[in-house]
């Protein structure tokens, strides 16, 4: 394939034809010159984006989502988006603060995000009781697992099963949403959120 020429900039702006994008990406994997050009164009586009206004905050999407609202939302959101909303659950006030100091903080978290972005991880929405939304993200190599839940009873534990063996990974924290990050959970067949001896959410990761 020939070099991208003006398509390098148009691609960075999302304005190339989608049918051509696969070709462009394949070329970028091989051509350092075009890659440098797209990277420069994406940097310029990111500067343009910094001048956009903040998206309006959603009062409904605060940490304290009432059980009923959460259930309703789950019904009409794509399930992935609903689960991801739990991960993204940030209060409007916190977002304002974050937006103000965004530039300063971005550099610091780039390392962590780069680690996430370049690792292979999967995610699964757990089948939950009404009022509970739970999601598990996990490294495909079994190096870590991250469970996020809203509406689960306080102190609920995350239990993983592999074959006949069950392992208690520990309790979700008291945050909203409640989270648990565990290293080396292995590659379990199933993940459960358990409270009072009963699973309030369960699902199977696909490694």
């Amino acid at each position, binding site marked *: 394939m020939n070099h991208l020429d003006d398509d390098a900039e148009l691609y960075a702006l999302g304005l190339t034809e989608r049918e051509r994008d696969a070709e462009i990406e394949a070329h970028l994997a091989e051509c350092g010159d075009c*890659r440098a050009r797209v*990277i420069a164009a994406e940097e310029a586009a990111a500067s343009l984006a910094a001048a*956009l206004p903040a998206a309006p905050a959603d009062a409904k999407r605060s940490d304290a989502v009432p059980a009923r609202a959460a259930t309703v939302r789950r019904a009409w959101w794509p399930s992935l988006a609903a689960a991801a909303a739990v991960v993204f659950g940030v209060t409007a006030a916190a977002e304002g603060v974050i937006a103000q100091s965004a530039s300063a903080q*971005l550099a610091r978290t780039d390392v962590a995000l780069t680690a996430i*972005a370049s690792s292979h991880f999967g995610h699964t929405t757990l089948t939950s009781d009404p009022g509970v939304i739970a999601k598990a993200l996990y490294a495909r190599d079994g190096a870590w697992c991250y469970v996020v839940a809203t509406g689960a009873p306080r102190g609920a534990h995350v239990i993983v099963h592999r074959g006949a063996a069950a392992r208690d990974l520990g309790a979700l924290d008291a945050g909203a949403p409640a989270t648990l*990050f565990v290293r080396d959970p292995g590659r379990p067949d199933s993940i459960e959120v358990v409270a009072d001896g009963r699973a309030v959410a369960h699902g199977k990761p696909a490694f």
Partner: protein
Amino acid sequence: MVLDGPAFDRAYREYAPRLRSVAFAVLHDRDGAEDAVHGALMRVWGGGTYRAERGALLPFLIACVRREALDALRGSKRRHLREVRASAGDPLAFDDTAALDPLEARRVRAALETLPAEQRDVILRAYYGHRTLAEVAQDTGVPLGTVKSRLAAALRRLHSTLSEGPR
């Protein structure tokens, strides 16, 4: 890979507002914007497709989110919204007073002012007005090929101005 829970949380929370504003600017719809951000992130992160040689992460993600949002806009579901907005005529104004990042917005404004008028115009229409290239061509009576080359040249020039200027 070394990554703890709080770092994971922080990472999500610090990028989300900016990515959301990119998607919202295109879609003018909060839930649609949220979906576009999630879609793009899950695609990038779930696939593990990002590599360090692809440049800094944030500009890469912003480009991914914008593509996702433009795709959603092109979807039939939201086409009528686009038509309503297009007929209302978005002002070709660059408003840095409400910017997510006011300092950077001021630098961008200064850089835009150094562009030739026809390059600035195409950036305002195509980027801040979210017109398709064909619409820009139609609105301005400039051939599509010229619109493309002007926009590309404008972005290259912006990059060199912004990377030379004071930060």
